[in-house]
């Protein structure tokens, strides 16, 4: 498979800051990759390098065989920056048409992408009247126009409500189905809603994970949480039997590995009528993300220093 993004051992140093250290990442046509990381992890820096705005201090990158920022690369790449404010006086349609012309895309595309992002009704209104989510969708329309072979989206879902977010991932999936490659950044796994093929996690400029979500789930091997609720008269004996921690006076909380789950559950069912309810929750996406990005481990939140 010929990768469209091929980054090898890329490092970026801004004076005292190591924004990226030895990052290698591939994205193939038709693939959707999520780039995750906390604030300052280096996501935007990587995008700027891929666009050729800044040159990495070490490593090599090619965009479909071209140098980032070269004419060839710019012809196939589309970008949605973290923050962009389109001219307030222009209408949505004028904004999209402007970028379509710059990219040399057919103008028929304009109406099509406006329809895709659900802005047809508002297309002839000035951008100043748009809501935050509409502006975000306009940014997306601008990126989609001209069928780019590589879409670089920096935090595209920030500011979108859950419904629009879902719609957004459907759009992205369609781009991928038609052979486009998508690299998008986000702050957390939960925002992704498990929609991308692959997840790459940056931590302080280092790539600490790069695998499909299911692989990450397995690799993290986080415990499963089981909560057992019992009548208040029985809670003590349930606690004595199962161990774990008492919570809320009426429940016991246990953690177990995936392999132990069925054994524990059958022990609980052995308790019979003492148990009122059992609640089993697998690790959340956020917990998996936190496992890899290690919040609270050595990256203590600033407020706690």
């Amino acid at each position: 498979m010929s990768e469209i993004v091929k980054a090898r051992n890329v490092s970026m140093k801004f004076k005292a800051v190591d924004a990226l250290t030895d990052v290698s990442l591939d994205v193939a046509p038709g693939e959707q990759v999520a780039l995750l990381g906390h604030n300052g992890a280096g996501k935007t820096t990587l995008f700027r390098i891929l666009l050729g705005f800044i040159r990495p201090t070490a490593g090599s990158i090619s965009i479909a065989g071209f140098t980032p920022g070269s004419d060839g690369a710019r012809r196939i790449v589309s970008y949605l920056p973290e923050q962009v404010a389109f001219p307030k006086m222009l209408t949505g349609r004028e904004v999209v048409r402007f970028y379509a012309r710059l990219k040399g895309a057919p103008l028929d595309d304009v109406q099509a992408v406006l329809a895709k992002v659900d802005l047809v009704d508002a297309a002839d209104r000035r951008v100043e009247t748009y809501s935050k989510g509409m502006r975000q969708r306009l940014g997306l329309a601008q990126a989609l126009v001209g069928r780019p072979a590589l879409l670089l989206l920096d935090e595209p879902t920030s500011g979108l409500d859950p419904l629009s977010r879902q719609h957004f991932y459907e759009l992205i999936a369609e781009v991928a189905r038609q052979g486009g490659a998508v690299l998008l950044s986000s702050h957390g796994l939960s925002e992704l809603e498990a929609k991308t093929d692959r997840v790459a996690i940056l931590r302080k400029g280092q790539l600490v994970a790069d695998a499909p979500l299911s692989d990450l789930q397995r690799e993290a091997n986080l415990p499963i949480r089981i909560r057992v609720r019992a009548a208040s008269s029985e809670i003590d004996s349930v606690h004595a039997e199962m161990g774990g921690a008492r919570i809320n006076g009426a429940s016991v909380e246990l953690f177990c590995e995936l392999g132990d789950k069925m054994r524990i559950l059958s022990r609980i069912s052995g308790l019979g009528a003492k148990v009122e309810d059992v609640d089993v929750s697998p690790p959340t996406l956020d917990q998996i993300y936190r496992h890899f990005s290690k919040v609270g481990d050595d990256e203590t939140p600033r407020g706690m220093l």
Partner: protein
Amino acid sequence: MHGVLTIAATEIRIGLRNRWIILSSLILLAFALILVLLGSAPGGEVKTDAVTVVVASLSTLSVYLVPLIALLLAFDAIAGEIDRGTLQLVLASPVSRGAVLVGKFLGHVTVLGIAVSFGYGIAGLVAFFATGGGDLSALVGVGRLIVTSIILGATFIAIGYIASASVRQTGTAAALAIAIWLFAVVLYDLALLGGLLASQDGVFARDIFPWLLVLNPADAFRLYNMSAIDAAAVGSNLGGGAGAALPLSGLATMLSPIAWAILALGLSTLILKRIRP
């Protein structure tokens, strides 16, 4: 080429929508009409053509107003787009950075051109008919004033781009633009006058002053317009005295603003090429 025209057209559209064109036309028109009124008041001395008098005072007005309008139009061009994040989008597209700047330049010059043509055009016609018509050649003077004002404006638009591309904040770019205006159209002339007064032997007045005068695009613009309307008849100012000794004369004087415009465009393109958005 496609990109250049697209960018130019969008700048013009924005200029129309945000009332830039209307506003600057009205400002120019208001000042011009005041001058028309003052100029057509009975003078008592030998009556020169009223329209010509107005053109003479308008060209002095242009020296101050046109660079100001041009710089205000230009200071936001790059710094503002960096601020808003749209420069990243434009630079990520297949359009070259040089084309981006040329497109903006064409757009802004058109915006300024529309404003100047309206403002001075209407004032010129008012002066023409208020004085009961008369010599049509006086209207040629108005046309010459409009064209040279646009060239002067283009120069300061290009100079404004240097300011806009050199700093990252729009506010700083605005301050820089005002400083450029103050220097080019006010302080520069004051310094020259000071030099004239200070130099006793006349070397400065004879060998250096004329060059310095032509070097400044705003002064060159004034020199050209004054010489074109036979400054002597109207009562001259700074440029008039040095008339014969000028290194450039007639239309060639306008080479100064044109050369500055090309230089400034080239320089701002170089700076834009080094920007890392």
